[in-house]
């Protein structure tokens, strides 16, 4: 098994090349990784991507659509993801489905910390992403990504169950593209990335801290400095 000698291009994880249809660069990539490691990786990623057990954890309106996604018509079970585990210890995926209030945020972070690696997070619906329509509320957290890293954002209020399935398919693709080694390695195999995040505490006026700057880094160029 050869270890990568040179850093692989630090690009976004790309879906794995179709079998038997490799470009030269991909062949080179394959050679560098070693065929055994690559195959192991593929088996590992196949297993994980087809067995995503979500945490049974509903917050608000979107939770109903999440349940609807598990019901007969949409049937998330087709993807092997219908086993909603109520205990975070057995869950692979946290679907933050609904408004995260400041009173609830510490519990969400704690649940995330209790989940074993590899774990993923889908922010489902406007509220989970940004606070959504309730973002001006004093008790509403403006997006769960202020405290925990989110892999997939599904906008909508609430998103259709198909949109959730679409997000799940995207997550599956992301898992299938994850690497075990090298600089582009997945979050859970890297030693420099923590999987536990500090739980905010209730303060006198707000949570303290109100956000985790290590996780939440908005693009400053997009904040509008002026308004006509």
């Amino acid at each position: 098994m050869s270890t990568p000698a040179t850093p692989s291009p630090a690009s976004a994880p790309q879906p794995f090349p179709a079998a038997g249809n490799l470009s030269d660069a991909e062949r080179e990539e394959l050679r560098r990784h070693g065929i055994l490691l690559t195959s192991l990786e593929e088996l590992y990623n196949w297993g994980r991507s087809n067995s995503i057990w979500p945490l049974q954890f509903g917050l608000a309106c979107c939770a109903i659509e999440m349940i609807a996604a598990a019901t007969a018509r949409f049937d998330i079970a087709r993807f092997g993801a219908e086993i909603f585990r109520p205990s975070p210890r057995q869950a692979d995926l946290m679907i933050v489905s609904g408004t995260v209030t400041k009173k609830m945020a510490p519990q969400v972070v704690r649940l995330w910390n209790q989940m074993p690696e590899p774990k993923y997070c889908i922010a489902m619906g406007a509220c989970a992403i940004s606070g959504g329509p309730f973002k001006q509320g004093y008790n509403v957290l403006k997006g769960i990504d202020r405290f925990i890293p989110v892999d997939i954002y599904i906008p909508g209020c609430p998103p259709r169950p198909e949109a959730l399935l679409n997000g799940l398919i995207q997550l599956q693709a992301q898992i299938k593209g994850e690497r075990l080694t090298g600089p582009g390695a997945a979050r859970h195999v890297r030693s420099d990335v923590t999987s536990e995040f500090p739980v905010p505490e209730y303060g006198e006026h707000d949570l303290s801290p109100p956000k985790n700057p290590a996780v939440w880094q908005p693009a400053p160029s997009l904040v509008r400095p002026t308004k006509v």
Partner: protein
Amino acid sequence: MESLEQIRDRLLARFPGASVTLVINPGAAAEHSLLLGAAHAVEMARFLRDDPALQLDYCSNATGLDWPDKEIVETKKLSVADPAGGPAKIVEEKTKRFEPGYLEAVYHLYSMALRHGPVIIRLRTGNRTDQVTLPSFTPIWRSCDFQEREIFDLFGIVFAGHPDLRRILMWDEFKDHPMRKDYVDPDDYEWEPTPHDRVLERAKAHYPVPPPAPAAPVSPTPEAKP
């Protein structure tokens, strides 16, 4: 059902020292209400519940209202005789009057037994800062239990006689009363890509300092992104 005036008169007759005032609702609904003095409020409420003609056994809704301190500017027009003998001049005289604010608890009472209602009763605190205690109606109507806790939490009215007066919606460490009109919410407006009005005011505090050089003032907008 008796009219509110009748109820008021009966209350005043029954509780001689109490103060009961009729509050007129000018709106289209014309749901007038009775303002009860806090001193005898509990007895009066019990009377309203137990009186056979009223039997207001069901308190549907209990809520708070915040009326902040107001400065009322009254304009009076005075005609001042011109000393020069000309026509009388009209001079506007402005008087500023300070109206202290108060917190108000409003209860909507119905009778399930006699199927009538609502009778609306109100209680007012002395001011918004230190005299914020009102008697609790929870011993009379248990449905006020959570609602009075909510009023305590969000408005800061302290209900004397409530069996379990804790914050209900916010956490216990929270200090503010967010439904008051002068509440300022925590400043987390760092990322507001679509601000206007109130949000814009709050978001401006977080805007990056514009570059001092006037050259190429690029206003970064979504169009500018790759």
